[in-house]
């Protein structure tokens, strides 16, 4: 699987599935909307530090299970960018797509 082309749609599905897992552990009033424009991390983000770490952990494991590829989403490189790739669902999908493309290609 690791050498096949990974479609962006597959990654979007993985991120939404990870959000399902995270939401299952959250109270109803703190559910994170499964939309690309949902802000995740930062001043306007829906998730606190425990929440974003939970999402990342679930997602990293899902990527490994699905594609057999190890990715690390929370890195100093990622956090030091002017626009953090973790700030929204859309940027997270883009970042993961880029990471997987780099590692599988």
């Amino acid at each position, binding site marked *: 699987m690791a050498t096949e082309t990974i479609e962006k749609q597959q990654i979007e599905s993985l991120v939404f599935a990870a959000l399902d897992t*995270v939401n*299952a*552990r*959250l*109270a109803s009033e*703190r559910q994170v909307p499964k939309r690309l424009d949902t802000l995740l*991390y930062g001043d306007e983000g829906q998730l*606190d*530090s*425990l*929440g*974003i*770490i*939970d999402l*990342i*952990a679930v997602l*990293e*494991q899902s990527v*490994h299970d699905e594609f057999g590829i*190890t990715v*690390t989403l*929370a*890195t*100093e*490189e*990622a*956090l030091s960018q002017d626009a953090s790739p*973790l700030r929204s669902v859309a940027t997270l999908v883009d970042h993961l797509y880029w990471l997987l493309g780099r590692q599988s290609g």
Partner: protein
Amino acid sequence: MDATSSKAPAARVAIIDTAYYLPETVVTNADLARENPSWDIARMEAQTGVARRHVVGERETALDLAVPACRQLFSRHAGLAEKIDGLLFCTQSPDHVMPNNACILHKLLDLGPHVAALDYNLGCSGYVYGLALARGLIVTGVAANVLLVTSDTLSRHIHPRDGSMRGLFADGAAVSWIAAADGDAGILDIECATHGRDYDAIMVPAGGMRLARSAETASPIVDKHGNVRTRDNVYMEGMRVMAFVNSKVAQQVRGLLARNGIERGAVDLFLWHQASKAALDSLARALEIPGERVFSNLRDVGNTTGASIPIALADALAQGRCRPGDLVVMSGFGIGLSWATALVRL
């Protein structure tokens, strides 16, 4: 195992034995849920991996925890107290601004006068840093038998309404007897590192000389997620710390193994600082280490900061997860930010 009592400089230094003590009071996740009905306990447990933690009573200190740990160690080794000539005490929760805990522990254990005793202030990297310090004392002939105490009471620094911290941290004390190695056992290599630019990623802002505690520093700050703390409490920026762990710690472990010509597969057990389940899982993924070669006692012990590695070592030995002769990697990382990794033959 036994150790030599000669004060002649030793070529190799080993962890001879380790004991620990946890305070009697236990707080379970069910207790936290009853006390804080709005907290997402399921998420807290999934992310931290902690189900219960031991915490000190109102008047109990890190020094109080260290005493029974040391007495337990002495009870296993007749005459050890008389041989001790080095005492290192790692804590962020000393009894007094001055003097240090090591001097008071020296009195409480009724040790002799020829003991080099000092405190050092580190958190989760403190045990491996302590191994480096103890090794330095022994290989230079300053001491022959060192007590390395790591004891902390982080619960005393956490606001009771801070759900981001309270589910993770616990209190505890550990003590290791460090002495000249006998046979193949010993500390093979250690690397310590610091990234002071992120000193404020984990911090208690008030209470030192820079910012004294006051009514102002004790006023509550509520974040948008409902966590409460004051500037007298510990604060941790979780994502910055996670990024640091994934970037710096994994790199250090790879580097230390490479310079010793050791493949990851040759390591019998990885004894990480018990930071959180998410952090340990992430490290294992980053380093591609199978789960059976990573030890965790987070569920029942929690994150005891500087004491977590020696407590994990003692538990792993007791459970048969590692045994004398095994090659283990110990890595501690946290406040400072600082991190340190040791390659040890048990």
